[in-house]
């Protein structure tokens, strides 16, 4: 058995951006970013606060129309097929992911319904999901009463309930203990292993190392894009934190 990065299928590009740009008046929030992300890849999208990550993510999710440049997400065009993009991606942010005043099962039903799953599918997937996460006894509990770590795991699972090609995670692990954080990453690895592309932002530099490749944005542009080990080599740094520091300390923008 040869152990390699067998889950990454570099012949299938699921995110393809060329010179993608977004301006707000004179302000260039995202400046001509170009990147390819492959099927089954875990891609870390890093940058200082205010570097333009959120604007870029919103364009890739079909929520914001670019000013110029091109991009296809899961094969769909970011200008003309934004509704198709939304159907083929999952999204989870630290700020909002689940409804606190619905139960675990109700959240699953709600999001399953939004994504157009049949009642049969929702029932089966819901049962499967709560069992897999060890939440079977909590299925009828309000999400508000769950520990943060469980909420995050549930939110991630709900974000991929409709088998999207890509899942976007915006700082998914903030505030949880180191053990729970690692359990969350096991879910990410497992999803990537089954062919889902994971596009993730984080401020934890050790998490950047868990990614197959990462990009670092500074003042609207992508300043570096490669495998973590190669970036460390390139910048003669012992950790991603150092790489980040070298690139971002000269940043002029901060949000």
């Amino acid at each position, binding site marked *: *058995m*040869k*152990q*390699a*990065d*067998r*889950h990454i299928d570099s012949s299938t590009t699921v995110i393809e951006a060329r010179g993608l740009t977004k301006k707000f008046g004179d302000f260039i929030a995202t400046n001509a970013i170009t990147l390819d992300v492959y099927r089954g890849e875990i891609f870390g999208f890093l*940058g*200082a*606060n*205010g570097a333009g990550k959120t604007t870029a993510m919103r364009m890739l999710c079909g929520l914001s129309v670019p000013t110029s440049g091109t991009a296809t997400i899961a094969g769909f065009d970011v200008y003309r097929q934004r509704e198709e993009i939304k159907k083929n991606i999952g999204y989870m942010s630290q700020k909002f992911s689940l409804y606190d005043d619905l139960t675990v099962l109700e959240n699953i039903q709600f999001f399953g319904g939004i994504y157009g799953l049949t009642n049969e599918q929702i029932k089966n997937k819901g049962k499967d999901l709560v069992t897999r996460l060890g939440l079977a006894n909590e299925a009828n509990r309000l999400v508000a009463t769950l*520990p*943060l770590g469980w909420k995050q795991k549930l939110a991630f699972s709900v974000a991929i309930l409709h088998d999207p090609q890509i899942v976007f995670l915006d*700082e998914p692990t*903030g*505030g*949880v*203990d*180191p*053990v*729970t954080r*690692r359990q969350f*990453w*096991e879910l990410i*690895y*497992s999803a*990537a*292993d089954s062919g889902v592309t994971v596009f993730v932002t984080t*401020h*934890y*530099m*050790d998490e950047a*190392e*868990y990614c197959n490749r990462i990009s670092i944005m500074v003042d609207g542009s992508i300043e570096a894009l490669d495998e*973590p*080990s190669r970036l460390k080599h390139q910048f003669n740094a012992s*950790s*991603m*934190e150092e790489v*980040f*520091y070298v690139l*971002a*300390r000269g*940043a002029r923008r*901060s*949000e």
Partner: protein
Amino acid sequence: MIELKELTKTYGKEKKVAVDRVSFSVETGELFGLIGPDGAGKTSIFRMLTTLLLPDGGSATVDRNDIVKDYRAIRNSVGYMPGKFSLYQDLTVSENLNFFATVFGTTIDENYELIKDIYVQIEKFSDRRAGKLSGGMKQKLALCCALIHKPKVLFLDEPTTGVDPVSRREFWDMLARLKQQSITILVSTPYMDEANRCDRIALIQEGQILAIDTPGKLTSSYGDALLAVKTKNMYALLKALPSYPSTINSYAFGEYAHVAVRDNRPEALQQWLTGEGFEGTEVIAANVTVEDVFIKLLGKNKTHRAEK
């Protein structure tokens, strides 16, 4: 300077315990870190020490003043930067600073030396409304406002949460400079890598202190042999490591996986991995970090609770 004895806080009718008989003390001029995840009780401790919340048990003093009886004295002598931005969003930078100085009966000029290093970085925005500042700028302004009355003790509740690594590093540099002015600082953070910037730290989880010591002593008393393993497919490695006969615990750690083992020979693990079909593996002795200590203590704590 700060002393907690069995300090306890419960919430609601069910008496849910948020802070569970917490005791520790912080020396004058010390930079003390309270390190743990959301919900560990960090904010409740801060709010009790700053006299904004009454304890349900135990006691605490700040600069020898009791947090219940002497709340007025404490409010005059401490600076508090809450986790949530709590300055006036519709006042400008300089108006906010002026406001806080006036409330404490002082002026910006009187204590300018103390905040100078930080304030010069936001001075050019002095006419901008606080609500329009970036995250890093807000953080700097909040620190200035907490310092302007020259407090003896500074309470900083998660000042670096959600802040990028560059701003985090700069913030800790600022704290190091404040420490030189012999201000006592109690700071909380969920980032384990920031522990090394503190003189001493307390690791906290679910309202209970797991350990208190200097970062150096905590890591040197880890107890188990810890190996670091690197290979191309981390996910496969993480799935395989628990079945290595000598494994006590294993988990991802940056580009490596960390494995606590009974048999501390790297070559033995390397050989086993080769037998399992892994190629190009690297096994070395790991540098124990505060995060490793926390993970070990969490495991112990859970087992302990399960036994109860």
